[in-house]
C-alpha cells in the first residue's frame, strides 16, 4: 500500500479531530460515531494493524475507512509533517480494499454505476444535458469557457436547480460558456476518493481527450469536487487547463458591478465546501459575492474557513450515506450551527452541500426558518 511506511507515525494526539481553535470536534465521522476508530488517528492505527495482520478486513473496518468524508480537516490541523498525506493515506487504504473487492455494497454499486452508466444515478447519458432546457446555456462549440456541470448537477433534482441558476447567471453576465451535455462524463473525483484509481484514470483520460478534441482551454465548474479533480489530479495525466470554480468567475463580475443588483435584506451564513475551501484554499471569492449584494448581511458560523465543518457528503458519502443518518449526522449538526447564527439562509457553493444541507433542514423541521441557497440562486434573486 502506498504510504505504508508512514502510517506508524501517527501519535493519536487527536489534533486532527478538532478545529484549529478547539471550539469543537470537526472530523465529521468522529463527530457522528464517537468511537476513536472513526477519527483520522483511529484510521491510521487500524490501517497499520491491518497491514501488520493484527486485524482483518471486515464490514466494520470497511465502514470505518469509507466513513471518511475526505474533508481534509485532519490535513489542516494535524501537527505533524506528514499531515498533508492523511487523506491520501485513507484513499490508498481504500484502493487496497477495492483491489481486493472487499468494499461496502454501496461503494461497489456506485463504482459500478459510474463504470457502466457514466453517472451514479444509472440514468441515460442522453439526459445529462436536459437540465439546460429553457435556459440560455448553449452546447459547447468554441466558447471561451466549458461549463462543466458534473453528475450531481446534471441529474439530482435539487442540484439541477443550482446548475440552472449558475448557468443562466454566467450567460447573463456576458460570459461565453457552453456545456458538453450528453458528451459530458463523470469527472472522477469521488471515484478517486473511493479508491478506484484505475477507473478514475480511465475517466480522466476520456475527459482530457474530449476536452482536447473540442479545443477546451478554460473550464468553469459548478461543483468544487470537479474543480478539485481538474485542478489537481488531471495535470499529471496530461490535462492542463485553466480551471475555475463558478464563484471565482462571478466574484469580479459582481464586484465590478457588471450585473446590477437590488437591495436584498437577507441574513446569510456561508458554508465553505471542503473541496473549494480547505482543499483549494478558496475562501474569499464566494464571500466577496455575498458581501457585494446590497442589504445582505453575512454572518459567519463559528466554524468557518479552514475550520468549516463538512456537510458529510465528501469522500463518496453523498452516495454511500454512511454518515447520513441520525441526529448526529454532520449535515444536521451543521444546520443547527447555521441556525445559531440567526441567519435565514445558508449559502452554499456546491451541489452536494446544497442537497445534504437541504435534506438536513427538513429532517430538523426547520423549513420555515432556514433556506439553503446556492450563491448563484441568491444573486439571481437579487437581480435588479
Amino acid at each position, binding site marked *: 500500500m502506498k504510504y505504508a511506511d508512514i502510517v506508524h507515525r501517527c501519535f493519536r*494526539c487527536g489534533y486532527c479531530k478538532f478545529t484549529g481553535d*478547539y471550539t469543537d470536534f470537526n472530523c465529521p465521522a468522529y463527530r457522528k460515531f464517537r468511537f476513536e476508530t472513526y477519527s483520522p488517528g483511529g484510521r491510521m*492505527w487500524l490501517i497499520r494493524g491491518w497491514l501488520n495482520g493484527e486485524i482483518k478486513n471486515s464490514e466494520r473496518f470497511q465502514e470505518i475507512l469509507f466513513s471518511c468524508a475526505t474533508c481534509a480537516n485532519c490535513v489542516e490541523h494535524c501537527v505533524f509533517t506528514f499531515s498533508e498525506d492523511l487523506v491520501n493515506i485513507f484513499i490508498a487504504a481504500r484502493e487496497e480494499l477495492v483491489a481486493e473487492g472487499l468494499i461496502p455494497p454501496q461503494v461497489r454499486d456506485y463504482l459500478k454505476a459510474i463504470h457502466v452508466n457514466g453517472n451514479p444515478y444509472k440514468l441515460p447519458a442522453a439526459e445529462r444535458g436536459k437540465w439546460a432546457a429553457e435556459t440560455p446555456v448553449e452546447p459547447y462549440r468554441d466558447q471561451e469557457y466549458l461549463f462543466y456541470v458534473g453528475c450531481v448537477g446534471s441529474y439530482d433534482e435539487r442540484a439541477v436547480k443550482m446548475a440552472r441558476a449558475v448557468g443562466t447567471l454566467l450567460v447573463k453576465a456576458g460570459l461565453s460558456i457552453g456545456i458538453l451535455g450528453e458528451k459530458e462524463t463523470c469527472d472522477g473525483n469521488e471515484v478517486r476518493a473511493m479508491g478506484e484509481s484505475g477507473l478514475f484514470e480511465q475517466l480522466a483520460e476520456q475527459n482530457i481527450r474530449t476536452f482536447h478534441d473540442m479545443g477546451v482551454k478554460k473550464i468553469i465548474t459548478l461543483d468544487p469536487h470537479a474543480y478539485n479533480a481538474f485542478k489537481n489530479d488531471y495535470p499529471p495525466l496530461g490535462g492542463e487547463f485553466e480551471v475555475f470554480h463558478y464563484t471565482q468567475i462571478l466574484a469580479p463580475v459582481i464586484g465590478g458591478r457588471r450585473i446590477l443588483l437590488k437591495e436584498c435584506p437577507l441574513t446569510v451564513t456561508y458554508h465553505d465546501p471542503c473541496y473549494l475551501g480547505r482543499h483549494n484554499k478558496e475562501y474569499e471569492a464566494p464571500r466577496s459575492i455575498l458581501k457585494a449584494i446590497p442589504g445582505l448581511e453575512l454572518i459567519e458560523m463559528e466554524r468557518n474557513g479552514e475550520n468549516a465543518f463538512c456537510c458529510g457528503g465528501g469522500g463518496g458519502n453523498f452516495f454511500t450515506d454512511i454518515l447520513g443518518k441520525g441526529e448526529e449526522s454532520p449535515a444536521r449538526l451543521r444546520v443547527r450551527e447555521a441556525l445559531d447564527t440567526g441567519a435565514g439562509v445558508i449559502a452554499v457553493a456546491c451541489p452536494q452541500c446544497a442537497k445534504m444541507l437541504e435534506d438536513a433542514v427538513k429532517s430538523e423541521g426547520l423549513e420555515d426558518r432556514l433556506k439553503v441557497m446556492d450563491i448563484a440562486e441568491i444573486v439571481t434573486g437579487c437581480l435588479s
Partner: protein
Amino acid sequence: MTDIVQSLARIVGDAYVSDRPEEAYFYARDPGLMPPHKPDCVVVPKSVEEIQEIVRLAAREKIPVVPMGAGLALTGLVIPLRGGIVIDMKRMNRILKVDEMARHAIVEGGTSQGYLKAYLEKHHPRLRHSIPDSPATATIAANVMIHGQGRLTQQYGFNSDMICGLEVVLASGEVCRIGSGALSPDWFSKGPPLPDLTGLFLGWFGATGIITKIGVKLYPRKKMRDVEIFITDRDSLVPGMVYELTHTEMVEDINIFAQPKPMIFKDNHHITLFYTGDTEEEMEFKRKTIWHSLDRFIRSKDGGFMGVPPAMKSTLLDMPQRSVSRFADVKKGGGFEYSGPIIMVDKYPACARKILELAEKYDLGYSGMARIIGRSHAMMYGFAFTFNRADPDMMERTRQALHEVSVFALEAGGVFWKGTADEQKMAMQKMDPATRGLMGMIKKQMDPHGIMNPGNWEVTEV
C-alpha cells in the same frame, strides 16, 4: 459477553457500544510503550445516569470498567489490564456552568482541555484555566485525576489543587457530590471546610470511582502574555535560578528543558518563563523584575537571557504547545513516552545528568523537561524519549531506559507521576507500610469487587 453487550446497548444505544475487533484493537493501546490488553467492549455514554447503569451492570457481572479520556497519559492508565469495559468519556463534554464572579466552571467528565479554553476565550475572556501541554483533546477530568500540571501550576500547584468539587460514580453505581457541592448548590470548594474526600479519587486513576463532573477553578486571564528564556550551561545552578524567579511572584509558568537538537538548544539548560499582564506597564514591570532577579547569574556569566526568535516565541506561547506533541516524530516514528517523577527542585542536576547518561547508554533521542510546581516546592522532571513505533529494538531500549529512570527516581527521593502499573508497584513496595495499608483499605472499601480499573494501585499484589 454477548449478553453484556446487549445490556450495554440497552443502556447507551446500539450505536455507542462495540465489541468489534477494530475498537478492541485501538482501545487496547495507548501511544506509549505498554503492550496491548484488549477490552471486551467499549462504550461511549452520554450521561451520568448511563454511567451509573454501566457500573451497576459491571458490579453485578464482576466485569472491570476502565474510564478513558483521550488516553494521553502515555503510561497505560486507560489500557484495560484485565479486559472489561472501556468507558470512553468524551461524549460527555458539556460545559455546564461558568460562574464569572466566583471564577469556576463545572464541566462534564469528558470535556476536553481545548474545548474549555475555546469556550472561555469566547464567552469569558477574562478567565482561564490551568491548561497542560498535552494535546487539546486531553480531558480535564483525566488530567486532574492523574494530578496533572499546567500553565498555572507554578502559581497554584497541581491541576488537582485547582478544583472546587467533583461528581463521581462509585463502584456501586451510586453517584456522589464531593466538596461544597455535596450540601450547597455552589461549588466553591473541593473539600474544606469539610473532610476533603477528593483524596479518595484523585490520583487513583479511576480505581475508586469515575469522575462525571468536575468543578474547575478559573483564574484571571490577562490581555498580554510573553515569554523569556534564561539559559545556563551549568545544571547545578538551575535550582538557584528557579528559586530567585519564584521569589518574584511575577512568573506565570516555569518550564526547563535541555535537549541536543536543534542546534540552538544544544549544551544548555533553558529556563522558559512566561508572564502576563493587562498593560504595557505591567508587562514591563514584570519583565524588569524577572530580569533583575537573575542579575547575579548574569554578572558572573553563569547565565543570560537568550534572544527568542519570533517563530520560536509564537510556538512557545501556543496553548497547548503543539510542539510538545511533535517530539513524538523526531525519530519519524510517532512514539514518545516519558517518566515524569515529581521531585525536589534541587535534584535537577542529578536528573539532567541521568537523562544524558541513559540517552547515551541506550542510544535514544531525548528531551529533559521540567515544570516547576508551586514556588519551587517541587518539580515534575520528565525523562522523555522519542522512539520509532516501527522499530521494536528502539522501543525495547526505550522501555529499559524508562525502567532505569523509575529506579533512579525512587532512589533520588522522587514520586512517580501517573506511574505505569509497574511503577505503581515499585512505589507501593517502597512506601511506608502503614500508608500502603491505608491505601489498601481504601481501595478495598471503595471497590470491593475489584472492578474499577483493576491492575492499578493493587496493594494486595505488593
